[in-house]
């Protein structure tokens, strides 16, 4: 029996495949973007048909689907909101995540049975502001990423609405929703899905006498490291936070599987036995398998310092560790059908990583292409291959290089 209230684990999904991975690897709910009214416009957004499929899959696995409708709308974006909201409701979407007062008000009227979650774009930092929106029909508030665990504890005590907290992924260095760097520097509307991430660009800093006061060799940067809240999960659960949210609708399936799987494990283990829970290094190790950006604790430990800033980092390299995903497994022949994701060869030592933190190891000995021709090297992206694996593997299992 659970000794503490178990929060929801909420994961992002950029497409249907990622949604399935997120749910299979332990997300209680996933959030996706529709084609309209959503930020992250470039995160392959779902059509109403896709949303229905997403909900069907989620229902089969007792998971929920939330849809982001979190733009700050301009006059010309106001039309067609009502039919869109109705279509979401008919599709079985449980909640919408919104930031614009009109979207919130409309949802309350048009789709009264759908939950309204207030997006972090409103940068809510206190319980009075939460309670304002609660009175307007908002059942959950995604609180600002500027808050410390101590503040979250206080807020959770006084909030009438449920509280959702970001635990992992990209961070705005500005109060979210209050940044228009992108608008001013590129004409792209940060609050309508066009954020150009200008805060991650390179700058030079000058004083009023036009003296360069940033380093002569390097650049001055504003950007934030990504958030990783592994060490704060027990405290957040104790604070009574209702939902723990992972950011990243544009992330890979390897990332989703790894990050979701790890937090699932931490939450389950802590809730099952809080007293004996140990924050094992294996959790950090596991996340580092898929995390290709520098991470920090954001504001959870208090006002961010230089350790939470990202200096002089131009790009992040995708990890090459994820080599294939399992499509099928034949128990009789012990051959798995897999889809290639990164270059590997015969002789590669592999780790199979599945839901519930399941791990097993094998070495690639025999490898065949789709035409049953034996090959030595898997070099084509998304190539369908057959590989001998001595133990049972399951669709959506991840095969990655053994460390």
């Amino acid at each position, binding site marked *: 029996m659970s000794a503490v209230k178990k929060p929801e684990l909420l994961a992002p999904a950029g497409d249907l495949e990622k949604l399935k991975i997120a749910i299979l690897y332990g997300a209680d709910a996933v959030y996706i973007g529709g084609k309209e009214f959503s930020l992250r*416009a*470039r995160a392959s957004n779902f059509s109403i048909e896709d949303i229905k499929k997403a909900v069907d899959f989620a229902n089969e696995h007792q998971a929920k689907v939330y849809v982001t409708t979190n733009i*700050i*709308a*301009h*006059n010309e974006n*106001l039309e067609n909101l009502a039919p869109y909201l109705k279509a979401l409701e008919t599709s079985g979407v449980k909640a919408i995540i919104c*930031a*614009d*007062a*009109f979207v919130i*008000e*409309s949802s309350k009227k048009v789709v009264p049975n759908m939950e309204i979650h207030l997006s972090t774009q409103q940068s809510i*930092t*206190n*319980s*009075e*502001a939460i309670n*304002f*929106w609660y009175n307007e029909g908002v059942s959950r508030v995604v609180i600002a990423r*500027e808050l410390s665990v101590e*503040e979250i504890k*206080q807020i959770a005590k*006084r909030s009438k609405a449920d509280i959702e907290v970001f635990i992992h992924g990209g961070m705005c*260095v*500005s*109060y979210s929703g*209050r940044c*228009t760097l*992108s*608008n*001013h*520097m*590129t*004409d*792209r*509307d940060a609050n*309508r*899905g*066009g954020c*150009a991430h*200008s805060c991650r*660009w*390179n*700058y*030079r*800093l*000058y*004083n009023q006498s036009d003296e360069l*006061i*940033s380093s002569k060799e390097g650049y*001055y940067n*504003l950007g*934030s490291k990504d958030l990783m809240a592994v060490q704060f999960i027990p405290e957040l659960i104790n604070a009574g936070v209702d939902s723990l949210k992972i950011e990243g609708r544009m992330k890979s399936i390897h990332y989703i599987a790894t990050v979701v799987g790890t937090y699932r494990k931490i939450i389950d283990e802590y809730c099952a036995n809080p007293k004996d829970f140990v924050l094992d290094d294996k959790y950090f190790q596991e996340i580092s398998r898929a995390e290709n950006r520098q991470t920090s604790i954001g*504001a959870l430990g208090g006002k*961010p*310092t*230089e350790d*939470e*800033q990202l200096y002089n980092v131009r790009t992040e390299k995708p990890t090459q560790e994820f080599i294939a995903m399992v499509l099928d497994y034949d128990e009789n022949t012990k051959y798995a059908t897999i889809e290639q994701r990164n270059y590997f060869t015969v002789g590669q030592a592999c780790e199979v990583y599945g839901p519930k933190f399941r791990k097993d190891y094998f070495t690639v000995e025999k490898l065949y292409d789709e035409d049953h021709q034996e090959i030595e090297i898997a070099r084509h992206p998304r190539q369908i291959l057959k590989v001998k694996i001595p133990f049972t593997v399951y669709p959506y299992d991840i095969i990655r290089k053994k460390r």
Partner: protein
Amino acid sequence: MLELIVSATSIDFIKKCDFCDAFIIGEKGKGLRLPHYFSFNEMKDILNLVKKRNQKLYIACNKIFHEDELVDADHYLKQISTLDIDGIIFGDLGIYQIAKKYQLVHKLIYHPETYLTNYESVRFFSNKGIKRVSIAKEITLDDIIEIASKKSIEIDILGHGAVNMFHSMRDLVTNYYKFLKHDQPTKYRNESLYIVEEIRDDKYPMIEDENGTHIFSAYDMCIIQHLDELIKNHVTSIRIEGLFKTDDVLLGITKVYYDAYRDYYHDINKYKSNKDEYINRLKSINGIQPFKDGFLFKKTIYKGDENNERGKKT
């Protein structure tokens, strides 16, 4: 009548500026990005002064309040409720909740910087019993007109001055100097700085203060050539932003705007024919920052273009 509001740089400035309609002032710890912070007693003196001159006074309580600051905010609104001021500018809806306790809702001016960009959201807040809303700086003149012409509530816009485009709670200058292992990392706190992006030439003003770090557009906003359309379509007030301005520069700007709108009310054709003259007068103010018309004629792009991640060079 259009209300001409100035955020005040000093008591001296207020003494000299007897021709604008209203001032914005505020106290440290409650106001955000104000050109000057006054003590509560100073604010009472200012109130007496401006009331004698039939000017209005708005108190800015527009900071983003964290949980442990709510008690302070509550105390402050209680204090304010004893003053005969004309409005309270706020950006955090927690303040709305507290204002209800002190019967101050009818004095509230909601100024959430970026969040009011359409007429339906403006109507939503008009139904909350507040006095006025300040709409976002990043929308077009047509959008402003469409919102204001609905007449659902009094509409305030930025008229002239610094355009904030970024606010982080973080000390982004100090953090950088700590990263560089500088021996005085807080050296530039409260100092006007600017940043330049590597492929651009614009200078973006930046300041780190007790509320974190703020970055501004390379150009001040200037709407002086559009007063006719704004007034005709029921915009209630325009703000002249005192931040980064000396008393003299601010006084100079305010005077040009005052003359422009007086011209408008006396003889609209005179206003129309003088439009270039107003710009020339503004430009001739010694020490005035470069200004443009912001987004009045530039619609921001809905969604992005993934092939142009870095944006076009401006």
